[in-house]
């Protein structure tokens, strides 16, 4: 782990519980996308450990009262990875398990990209890239104004950092000292047309955020211990917004998807691929 120092000592039982949960989430992701016939498994799987840690350890939410004013907020700015979010919300009881079979179907709460107007637990619609951090800034500003102590988490894709609006928002978050705002970059280094290094290089990514006056944590985003330590440190109020640059593997947990740009989206998980995927996930570390 690079960047800012974390001070937490993490309980191994917690990590084990979260790792098991992440497996369940990953299994739900591939099952959902298999059933839907399309979707974005690569970026859902890379973010599974981050989303699991947030929803099953850190976030203060209430499935019985999704609009609770003091809840922590989560914005999935990389909205195409919503299967990971839908899985987590379903595991928490926001939706019946049968909803998982309806991804992308007409009338489903699980739209192809998240829609807050019809989906409880979805704090903001997403899907068009580059918007989420601005929205998170708006929520965090109001948290400060209303003296509520919620934290706003924004999950960003690496490719979407190509959008200039992300940096407008980054500048603004530092201006207003939004230490109730935590951005997490799912840095799996692949976007639709290829490696981020080729399409639009981002490195040195930590330095970019530091130059915008953010606290920066650089971790292995598929190592649950590091994920938990980083979020624990980032959510502490230190007068500046925090970003966790989570170095991840696209397709993490499914052998034939790992590091394969083609599994960003657009490919079908057929019955035999589903079986392999579920075996990989159950057998994986």
């Amino acid at each position: 782990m690079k960047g800012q120092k974390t001070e937490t000592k993490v309980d191994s039982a917690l990590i084990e519980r979260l790792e098991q949960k992440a497996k369940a989430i990953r299994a739900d992701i591939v099952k959902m996308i298999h059933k839907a016939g399309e979707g974005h498994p690569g970026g859902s799987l890379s973010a599974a450990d981050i989303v699991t840690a947030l929803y099953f350890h850190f976030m203060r939410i209430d499935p019985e009262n999704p609009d609770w004013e003091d809840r922590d907020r989560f914005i999935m700015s990389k909205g195409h990875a919503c299967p990971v979010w839908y899985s987590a919300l379903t595991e928490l009881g926001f939706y019946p398990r049968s909803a998982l079979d309806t991804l992308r179907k007409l009338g489903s709460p699980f739209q192809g990209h998240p829609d807050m107007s019809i989906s409880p637990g979805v704090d903001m619609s997403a899907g068009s890239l580059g918007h989420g951090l601005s929205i998170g800034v708006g929520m965090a500003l109001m948290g400060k104004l209303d003296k509520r102590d919620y934290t706003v988490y924004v999950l960003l894709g690496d490719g979407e950092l190509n959008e200039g609006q992300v940096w407008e928002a980054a500048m603004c978050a530092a201006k207003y000292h939004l230490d109730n705002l935590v951005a997490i970059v799912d840095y799996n280094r692949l976007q639709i047309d290829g490696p981020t290094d080729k399409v639009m290089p981002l490195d040195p990514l930590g330095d970019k955020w530091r130059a915008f006056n953010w606290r920066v944590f650089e971790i292995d985003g598929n190592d649950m211990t590091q994920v938990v330590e980083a979020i624990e440190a980032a959510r502490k109020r230190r007068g500046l917004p925090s970003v966790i640059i989570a170095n991840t593997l696209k397709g993490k947990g499914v052998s034939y998807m790992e590091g394969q740009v083609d599994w960003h989206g657009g490919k079908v998980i057929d019955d035999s691929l589903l079986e392999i995927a579920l075996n990989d996930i159950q057998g994986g570390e």
Partner: protein
Amino acid sequence: MEKIPTRIAYGQALAELGEENDRVVVIDADISKITGTHFFARKFPERFFNVGIAEQNEMGIAAGMATTGKIVFASTYAVFASMRACEQVRTFIAHTRSNVKIAASHGGLTGTTDGVTHQGTEDMGIMRTIPDMTIIMPADAIATRKIVRELAEHQGPAYLRLTKIPMPIIYDEETDIQIGRAVQLRDGDDVTIIAIGDMVIRALEAADLLDNNGIRARVLDMHTLKPVDKGAVIKAAEQTGAIVTVEDHNILNGLGSAVAEVIVENRPVPMERIGLRDTFAESGEYEELLEKYGLNTRHITEAARKAMGRKL
């Protein structure tokens, strides 16, 4: 006649509203002295946010703010609100039905000498194609103040179009102005002139000139472009048999289009449209621009005669 830019009336109204309603927050993009939001900023610095020259970020932040139960007024110029930040407005303010009021100064040719970059002449058309977006352009300072109050009570997204230049006061404080309800300023049965925003005063002048020649023109202030007051349009078609629309905007997808849609589906009558003839304008004084681009009082009277002449 007293003249006030409606952007200034907007800013003053916001400052008053801020006192009565602590849910009101205001966001601007480095033009608060021009949009009028500085009046609010001075009184309520903790509820005013200046995000610098970043309108896309501004609209995203506004959407985020609105999720916490706030009434958000987001100010910039019409060109930037409707085009630079168009997708932010469409997907994150309109589709989410966020309680964000986008206040856009420099509507139409009121951008005057600043030229095309600062003349919002397509903005209403763009906004009109976005579902759930309410669109309003008040004619004067009094109507603006009343509409700002109405907007604070109105739930959901809205686009408020304002003028850079001073507009003559045509209303008095007693006038009832409600979102979605056209105001009949003159009665008449020969023709109806339906105008919006800075064109309402021109419509009144045109009606006076027509009256001098024995033509009784009804004048409607269609301050709310969307939802357009269908009842008032149909009644005008039925009772006057000819309609002229007048807008400081491209002729496409603004007031003329909205009124035409209502009459072709309900009560077809001859109709003429006044507006920019699908062209960009240029730098110039307001009066010069209206004359060159065919939006002046005499163009309205000519259109009224033409529409009347086409009556069956």
